[in-house]
């Protein structure tokens, strides 16, 4: 491709997705914006090699490589600093608003859930966060983490099973206290 205007039209709608992934990788909004900025510059520089098909996958690959090369030096624990999870409040415009009862329950359940997720090994945690929290498809998650889709399916399945077991244990312990 050698058309800057077409490049802009293809890339601009992907900015929110890139920001969400970058936020997951860097752990904060300021670094995420810098990472996306750098990704866009690199993508523009590599425009001649892009055939115009699947811009999201192409951009996510550039973003992952940029994060790997640049951000890893700054933040060795990248793709893994999910400690921010318990501090995150559910989004105001989350798809399904919680009922009053759910709101009360969430005060008890959220810390248990966050602890269960944080107890997972990094590769499982990253997959769970990208698919369940951020809502990426298996294919997008595979692109972001640079692994085959089959690996994502397997990690996701094992991660959910582990979280379920941890929650079950935590609930039983809470009842016996």
């Amino acid at each position, binding site marked *: 491709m050698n058309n*800057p205007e077409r490049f802009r039209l293809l890339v601009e709608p992907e*900015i929110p997705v890139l920001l969400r992934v970058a936020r997951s990788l860097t752990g904060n909004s300021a670094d995420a914006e810098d990472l996306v900025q750098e990704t866009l510059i690199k993508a523009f520089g590599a425009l001649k090699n892009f055939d115009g098909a699947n811009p999201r996958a192409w951009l996510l690959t550039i973003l992952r490589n940029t994060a790997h090369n640049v951000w890893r030096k700054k933040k060795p624990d990248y793709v893994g600093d999910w400690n921010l999870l318990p501090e995150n409040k559910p989004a105001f415009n989350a798809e399904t608003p919680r009922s009053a009862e759910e709101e009360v329950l969430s005060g008890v359940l959220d810390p248990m859930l966050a602890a269960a997720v944080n107890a997972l090994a990094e590769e499982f945690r990253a997959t769970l966060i990208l698919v*369940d929290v951020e*809502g990426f498809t*298996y294919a997008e998650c595979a692109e972001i983490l640079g692994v085959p889709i089959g690996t994502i*399916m397997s990690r996701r399945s094992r991660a959910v099973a582990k979280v379920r077991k941890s929650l079950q244990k935590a609930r039983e312990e809470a009842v016996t206290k």
Partner: protein
Amino acid sequence: MKISEVMSMPECHWVRAHLIRYLDRDPSAPLSEEELTRLQTHIAICDKCAAISDEYRETSKALSQFRTQVDQESIERLSNSLKKLTLED
């Protein structure tokens, strides 16, 4: 443990291995019609697998509540810088 429970154990194992794909319905990993029927038939009669399916659903729903919102100002700044980048060329 009941004899019927022991008999259904291999099927439970198969169902649990495919449960996430069934719940996610991700386009990259679709189940065949035959697999869907097999899974739904088992969940309808197995209380344990049905309970696990519900727990998976609840866990996934609870996790999605943590989804962070993207800062609109960041989007605008990046859109503007993209515009500059492509116009400069």
